[in-house]
Structures are given as structure tokens and as C-alpha cells.
């Protein structure tokens, strides 16, 4: 009997997979699964620590599209090119697959994928006398936010991430800045927070949030905004496409039947403010159960897993955003009204060409270099502090510029 230790993030889809793992062990009685479920930040820190020092504690790691290319370059991941043909690698959405492929080798299997989009309250839009286009501009978003805000009854026009973290507010702001023509670095890896575009981005964001956002937005992340939206306190929410299934789930959401979807806004510069992300499963190079790990990944990211979830929990709850076949499945399209918008959003993201100008890095809402997580979080903290009213936009940008320059220098760019 071989033990496969799996590090996972504590989100709904992963927890569900844990619950369904009996199906796997029934098929593979010689493989024992050990789960290590951790909160996202803790997980990232744990697996990074482990892989960087070759601890070998895990056989399967749940990592994001940010880590995959970096780790793969260090030869820390086992290539998944030899997955069996039934698994059908070609079925994976090209945008997602591209982000997980380095030098022609696939290094991770996507468990679910997401982009971001606008979720809005149809009833409130109607009340405000507006109509949401499929591809709104930022200006329209602002107008709509103004129209929907009713602070006395605790309805806020727009909810956006404010909580510091490279995967929290910086994911949103980086994606947003792309649509404003801003970028992290120019082609010489010089930090760009002193650019006009960043100033416009951040000023616009601050303007939206202070006037139409909920109180305490500077500590709101995905979870907080989700619950605000579910409780009917947000007019619009621009966030991950996976949220769509939560906000439309009548068990959890008080506004399930009043939600509309639109593409992330743009500014007419050719880029939309949406991101691209996937939680993937990968096998670290140090694992002593590589084959069994692959067997597990095959099961967890297969089409049949999707069907298994559908049969147990309904089609709306299957992990989205990874396979073309899913978006061709009528059952799914019927059950998930947001499916089409999700697919369009994913397809609209371009990790290799994220911003208006050319940049030396890949990644839409992140910069795929090892230093980014650290820098991103610190910059996020400055922006978050600005949102909390503790410093001005200029101050925040100046500090961001300084610390980014500093860190990049330390890393030897």
C-alpha cells in the first residue's frame, strides 16, 4: 500500500473532492490518501517551503498558475506529458493549458479554472434605470455604482477586493491596471508605479470604493465580498468567475435569482480588467510515489470526476473552467447560467500579453517571477492602507515604487 499525501486549499471544490475520494480508493485499494487541508496563504507558504528545501512531504500539491511556470523552470515538478490518452489533455482550455506548459511540457493538471467578471444585481440595475451591457466600461461601472448605492439600507454600489495580498487586492488591481494601460515593469524590469497609468488606476479604484463601497473594504477579500453579495449588500461585484455558482445558489444566497453577469470592464484600450487563474494539481519532483500521485491526479481532473460530482451534487457544482467539453455539455449549460460568460472571460485573458504595452513577463494578474509574491503582498499592503485612509494615493504609489525597486535590486535584476 502506498500513501499519497495531498496538500489542498480549503475551498469548496477541494473539500468536495475530499468527500468523494472514496470513489478513488475503491478503484485503487492499494493507494492510501492523506489530506492536508490548509488555508490558501498557509498552504502556499507550506508547499513553497517544502519544495524549495526539498522536504518531500507531499506527493500532490495544489498550486496556482503563478507557481507552475516558476517551479517547472527549477525542475521541481514532474512532467505530466505521459498522462494516459483517456485523460484527454487536448480537451483542456487552451488559455489554461498554455499557462501550465513550459517548454512544451505540461507540469500541472487544472482542477478548476477561473477568470473574473462583473456580477451585478439585476433588480437594483432596474431600479437605477440602467442596463448592463455585456462588455461594460469602467465609466459605466462607476455610473451604475452611483445609481445603486443606498447606504441607509446598507446597499453599496460596488464591492471590490481591498484586503492586502498578492492574491487578494493585487490580483484585482493588477488586472484592472492592465485595462488602464498600466504595467508592473517595463522591458528593463524597472518598476512602473510612478507612471501616470497606475495613478489613474488607483485613483479610480479609490474613488469607486470610498464613494460606493462598503465600510471596512480594506479588509475585504473574496470571502468577505461573497458574503456581502449573498446578503444583498452589493450592487456589483467584480471577482472570480467561480463565485457565480455561489451567488446563484439559493441555499446560500438571498439574491440567487437576481444576479446578472458581464465581462470585466475595459477602458477602450484593448485590454479588459479580468484575470486568469487555475488551481492545479502537480507532482513535486521529490515525491516517492510519483506514479500513484499521477493516478490520483488523473482521477481528480478527469471528465469522469466531473460526472461523478454532477451525479452527486448536481451539474452546477462541478469544477468549472478547465475543459472545453464541459462547455459543450448541455446539462451543464442548463444548470449554470453563468457558463458562457465564464468561458468568454477565460478566453478574453491573455497571460502572455497582459498589458497594453509589451512587458517582459507573463501573467495577467501576477508577474511570473519568484519575487512577485513577496513584492505583491507588500505593495498590496500599501494600497490597502491607502484604501483605509491611512495614506494618500501618491504616498502609496511612491512606497510601492520604492519597495519594488528595492526588492528587484535584491533579487539581482
Amino acid at each position, binding site marked *: 500500500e502506498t500513501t499519497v499525501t495531498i496538500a489542498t486549499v480549503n475551498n469548496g471544490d477541494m473539500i468536495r473532492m475530499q468527500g468523494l475520494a472514496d470513489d478513488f480508493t475503491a478503484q485503487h485499494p492499494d493507494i492510501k490518501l492523506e489530506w492536508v487541508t490548509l488555508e490558501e*496563504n498557509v498552504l502556499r507558504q507550506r508547499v*513553497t517551503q517544502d519544495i*524549495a528545501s526539498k522536504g518531500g512531504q507531499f506527493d500532490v500539491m495544489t498550486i496556482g498558475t503563478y507557481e507552475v511556470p516558476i517551479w517547472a523552470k527549477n525542475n521541481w515538478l514532474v512532467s505530466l506529458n505521459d498522462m494516459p490518452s483517456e485523460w484527454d489533455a487536448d480537451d483542456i482550455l487552451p488559455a489554461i493549458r498554455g499557462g501550465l506548459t513550459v517548454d512544451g511540457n505540461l507540469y500541472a493538471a487544472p482542477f478548476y479554472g477561473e477568470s473574473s467578471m462583473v456580477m451585478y444585481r439585476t433588480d437594483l440595475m432596474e431600479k437605477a434605470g440602467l442596463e448592463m451591457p455585456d462588455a461594460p466600461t469602467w465609466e459605466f461601472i462607476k455610473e451604475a455604482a452611483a445609481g445603486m448605492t443606498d447606504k441607509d439600507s446598507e446597499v453599496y454600489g460596488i464591492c471590490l477586493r481591498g484586503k*492586502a495580498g498578492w492574491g487578494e487586492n493585487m490580483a484585482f488591481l493588477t488586472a484592472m491596471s492592465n485595462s488602464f494601460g498600466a504595467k508592473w515593469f517595463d522591458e528593463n524590469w524597472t518598476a512602473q508605479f510612478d507612471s501616470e497609468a497606475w495613478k489613474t488606476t488607483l485613483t479610480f479604484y479609490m474613488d469607486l470604493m470610498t464613494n460606493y463601497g462598503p*465600510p*471596512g473594504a*480594506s479588509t475585504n477579500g473574496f470571502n468577505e465580498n461573497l458574503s*456581502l453579495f449573498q446578503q444583498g449588500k452589493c450592487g456589483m461585484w467584480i471577482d472570480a468567475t467561480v463565485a457565480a455558482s455561489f451567488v446563484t445558489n439559493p441555499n446560500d444566497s438571498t439574491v440567487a435569482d437576481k444576479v446578472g453577469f458581464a465581462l470585466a470592464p475595459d477602458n477602450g484600450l484593448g485590454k479588459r480588467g479580468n484575470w486568469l487563474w487555475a488551481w492545479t494539481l502537480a507532482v513535486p519532483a521529490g515525491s516517492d510515489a510519483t506514479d500513484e500521485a499521477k493516478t490520483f491526479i488523473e482521477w481528480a481532473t478527469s471528465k469522469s470526476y466531473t460526472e461523478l460530482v454532477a451525479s452527486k451534487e448536481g451539474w452546477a457544482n462541478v469544477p468549472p473552467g478547465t475543459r472545453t467539453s464541459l462547455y459543450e455539455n448541455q446539462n451543464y449549460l442548463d444548470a449554470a447560467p453563468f457558463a458562457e460568460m465564464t468561458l468568454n472571460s477565460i478566453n478574453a485573458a491573455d497571460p502572455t500579453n497582459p498589458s497594453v504595452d509589451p512587458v517582459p513577463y507573463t501573467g495577467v494578474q501576477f508577474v511570473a517571477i519568484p519575487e512577485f509574491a513577496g513584492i505583491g503582498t507588500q505593495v498590496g499592503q500599501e494600497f490597502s492602507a491607502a484604501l483605509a485612509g491611512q495614506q494618500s494615493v501618491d504616498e502609496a504609489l511612491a512606497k510601492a515604487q520604492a519597495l519594488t525597486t528595492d526588492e528587484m535590486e535584491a533579487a539581482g535584476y
Partner: protein
Amino acid sequence: MATQHSRSAARIMMAPAVILLLGWMLVPLTMTLLFSFKKYLPLRGGDLGWVGFDNYIRFVSSSAFWPSVQATLVIVGGVLAITVIFGVLLALLLDQPMWGQGIVRILVIAPFFVMPTVSALVWKNMFMDPVNGLFAHLWKAFGAEPISWLSEASMQSIILIVSWQWLPFATLILLTAIQSLDSEQLEAAEMDGASPLARFGYIILPHLGRAITVVVLIQTIFLLSIFAEIFVTTGGSFGTRTLTFLIFQRVLESQNVGLGSAGGVYAIILANIVAAFLMRIVGKNLDA
């Protein structure tokens, strides 16, 4: 007690503890020192060679350094002040005759048993959340705008959470100290015409001196390294990045082990400055 035989026995019996702790201190410390002079980036291939004092210079010259030292001292100082002052008051209250003293003591001691992670989670979500937190409900009930505790009053919030966890400790030590006060001394002061306030100021408070030193010493040791409370609540934003947290960011988030190690060395220096300061006071007080 002090025959040759027992002295050599003492040395042997002390050896395991001393050697283990010496190892526990020296081995990682040496490695940390070693790393701190290197460019050590695990995500870029690990050990990239010696860099002299670069890491040290970079660590202090970073704009985050001094604020983090300040944050550390403010949190430690704030928590110490709150726990000692309220600890004394609470101890005085609990020392009074009352019904159900045992149960009250159980209630007061309880926070000490709560894991820092749990306490941070509970406070953050269920009390300080600006929308669903109990404080928000309370504020709204009084018609006030709910405060976004962790961003608008981040330091105060963290100090509050940490103080809540350590107040029982301070209270209990101080209560035991008050109860150990020779009642004849208080009676003597009463005979001497001292009012209750004078008795507190002239007799009880000086008597508590030793206990307060111990509270301060032990708490400082633990407070200098608080981590979970910050990690869970603010993640180091809004000026709550302590030195420990800054090192955490360098080592684990940025995966810059060299830089983080240099930070670790600074933290050790800071801890030792604080410690030397405390030890001087406590050392005197210990065998008195």
C-alpha cells in the same frame, strides 16, 4: 549540600539540559548567521554565494525596517501596559469576598487556554468584522457607523486581542501575589491610619513589584514572537508588521532566506537588548 561528590553529580545532571539547549540555540543560530552572509534564494536555485553584509544593509535600509521595530515595541508595550494595569485591578476585585469566586476565576482564566490562531479567528470574524461582527451590530444598535477595526484601528485591535489572551496570566499571578501578602501588614497599615487608597499605594503595589516583574518578563518573551494573531487578522497590513512578521515575509513570502536570516539576526539582537534590560531588573528580583 556542597560536597565534592554532589557538585560533580550536579554538573552531570545539568549536562543534558544545557547541552540540548546549547545545541538548540547554536546549530540554527550558526546556520542563520551563515545564510545571512549569502545570497540564498531557494526559488532561484538556492545558495548563490557570499555577499558580505549586503543582506544586513538591505534589511535595515528597507523602508519597512524601522516601522516594524516600532510596531513590535508598541505591541509589546501596549499589551504589557494593559495586562499589568487591568491585571492589578482585576486581581484586586477578585481578591474581595464574593459569591461564586471559583467560577469567576474559571471565567477569567479561560482565554489563556485558547490557541492564538483560534482567538485571532474568532475576534476577527465574529467581533471585529465591520459588517457581521458583533461590534458592528452593537455600534449600529447605538446608531453609530461600524468601525472597520482591523484597518482603521489595526494596532489597537491587535493589542486588544493579544491583551485578552494574556490578561488571565497577569491577573492570576497578581492575584496570587496579593493573596500572599501578609494580612498583618495590611492590618498594621490600617492601624496606622492608612486609607484603602493609601494601603493600595503604599503596601499592596510595592508588594506586587516582584510579581509584576515576572509578568513583564514572561510576557515579553512570548510577545516578542507573536505571529498567529497578526498573520490571521491583518496579515501585516496597516502598520502592524512586526519585526517577526517582516522576517516571515522575507523568508517565506519572498523566499529570500539570506535577507530573512539577516533580519533574524537583528531580531535576536533586539530581543537581547530587551532581555538584557529585563534580566537586569528580574535577576535582582529573582532570589530576593
